[in-house]
């Protein structure tokens, strides 16, 4: 099977949230209530157990891409649809004690709802803060990459619904190439801060959901250098073993005296 991937392009997104709605409808994701955040037009805030696509609204002062707003400030309105990164090396998958989180034949990361027991360890192990526990059901949820649709040869609901092709779906190498071409094009058009977000040089080893963004990753709450937590396994266990040996020593000495 081909390796599936998303390429989500901030410079094409118009903030219509069709992807958020399509995802909720197709996957029967529960509502998350009505809250008013005051954060531009974003009342969703972040990905979570009941949000598998999240459209960000960034209001930035910038001379590039200035919009006519009636104020004197040069103003840039940025949108981007965030999603689970489907990491090449996924923190959630490494952490899962039950084997509920698996890598599918499409190389995506999938949580089997009937196996997940709600231990919550994936929640603190995802370097992107994506997966979360639904407290009513008691188990973990995140984007499935529309595994069901893909198996039937359909593209994921969000990509299907996107009216501007800001969300592109396809084969990973193909999309990586397309992303490079797009960034080049944006540079030529004066968007010198356009870049690809696809952390390949960290222990995450790249993602199956990459992004074309303007500016620094941090402004989209993307970690600049995400790491799979298990890279720290060795140093943590070394410290634990040394501490445990110290305990053995203290106990032996104390009771032998």
């Amino acid at each position, binding site marked *: 099977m081909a390796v599936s991937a998303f390429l989500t392009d901030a410079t094409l997104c118009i903030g219509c949230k069709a992807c958020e709605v399509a995802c909720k409808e197709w996957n029967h994701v529960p509502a998350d209530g009505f809250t008013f955040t005051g954060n531009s037009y974003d009342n969703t805030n972040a990905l979570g157990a009941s949000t598998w696509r999240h459209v960000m609204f960034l209001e930035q002062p910038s001379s590039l891409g200035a919009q006519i707003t009636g104020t004197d400030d040069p103003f840039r309105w940025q949108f981007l649809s965030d999603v689970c990164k489907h990491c090449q090396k996924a923190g959630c998958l490494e952490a899962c004690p039950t084997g509920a989180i698996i890598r599918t034949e499409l190389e995506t990361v999938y949580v089997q709802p009937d196996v997940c027991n709600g231990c919550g360890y994936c929640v603190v192990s995802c370097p992107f803060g994506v997966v979360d526990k639904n407290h009513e059901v008691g188990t973990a949820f995140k984007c499935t990459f529309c595994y069901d649709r893909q198996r039937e040869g359909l593209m994921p609901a969000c990509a299907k619904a996107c009216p501007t092709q800001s969300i592109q779906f396809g084969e990973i190498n193909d999309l990586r190439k397309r992303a490079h071409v797009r960034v080049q094009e944006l540079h030529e058009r004066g968007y010198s801060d356009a870049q690809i977000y696809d952390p390949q*040089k960290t222990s995450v080893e790249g993602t199956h959901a990459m992004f074309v963004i303007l500016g620094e990753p941090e402004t989209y709450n993307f970690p600049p250098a995400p790491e799979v937590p298990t890279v720290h396994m060795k140093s943590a266990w070394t*410290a634990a073993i040394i501490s445990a040996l110290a305990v053995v020593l203290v106990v032996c000495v104390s009771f*032998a005296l």
Partner: protein
Amino acid sequence: MAADPQITEERLNAIRDEAARTGKVQHGGIVPADSPFPKSALEMSYHGNPVLKPPTWTWQVPLYFFVGGVAGVSALMALVGHVTGNSALVRAELLVGLVGGAISAPLLIADLGRPGRFLNMLRVFKPRSAMSLGAWTLSGFSAAVGLAVICHELLRAGYGHEFLLAVEWFAEFLAAFTGLILASYTSVLLGVTAIPVWSENRRLIPAVFLTGALGSAAAVLEFLGFLIPATQLIGLVASTTEIVIAILIEVRDRYADRPLREGIAGWLTRAGAILAGPVSLLLRIYGVHSTGARYCAALCFIAGALIARYAWIAAGRASARDPQALFQIQRRDRNTTSAI
């Protein structure tokens, strides 16, 4: 754009670092044509929203960390007691281990919501997941301690047999070994996550948890009537170690450690450290001849160690809420290695 974008970026990074360190920028920096004044990277994030998700664990989990630690170290003490021929000690410690293991499982299960869900943990054995290792360790530990208790009681009741004794030795050894893992894996569980304050302290948390477990196990022994020099000595060592760790946390000026010094988590950390550290130590030193003082010292240590478990979870929650803690570490690591 400036003539050499590389130099501009470096300059901006230097300014950001300075701002991160000192809280303000002294130099004018570089203002590329037509751009706003470079903001300190500290303010960079999506509406200040958290990047990471906070731990979902309920109040039972830190309690389990504590109980599991005490049970584990107690099993070690039972083995040492057997080696040194202290039969009363073996009996008491095996019982502590048994009760601790029996309490631990329901605590973990309560966090999962439904009892049957614990069985899913035993579907696979996955050592690279500390959670999986922990579930298996707890199961193995409980079985080993149970076996040791049965053998020990049968031997006491006069059903003496060489084979039974061999089984007891084996079970005790297994219980001590799995007990040490039980007492330490929870620290690795926290250290190997994406949460900045945990991950940055992955080398320290094992010392914290094991010291707490060691001192508390000795304190529990004292309450069981073992007011012997050994428990006193262990209490002194554990309290001193607590003080050293607390000083380390206070003087080490790292951004990621802020939840350990600020807010509710910070005060919990301090309260735990003071109780288990200086208070318990002074009670032991100045109350050498008073049984009451010794009980007080034991109680203070247990309370301090228990509070410390809650403090570490609370610190993790606060740390997940602060996007800058994560960005700072990653920017630091990125500057020392290479760019993405």
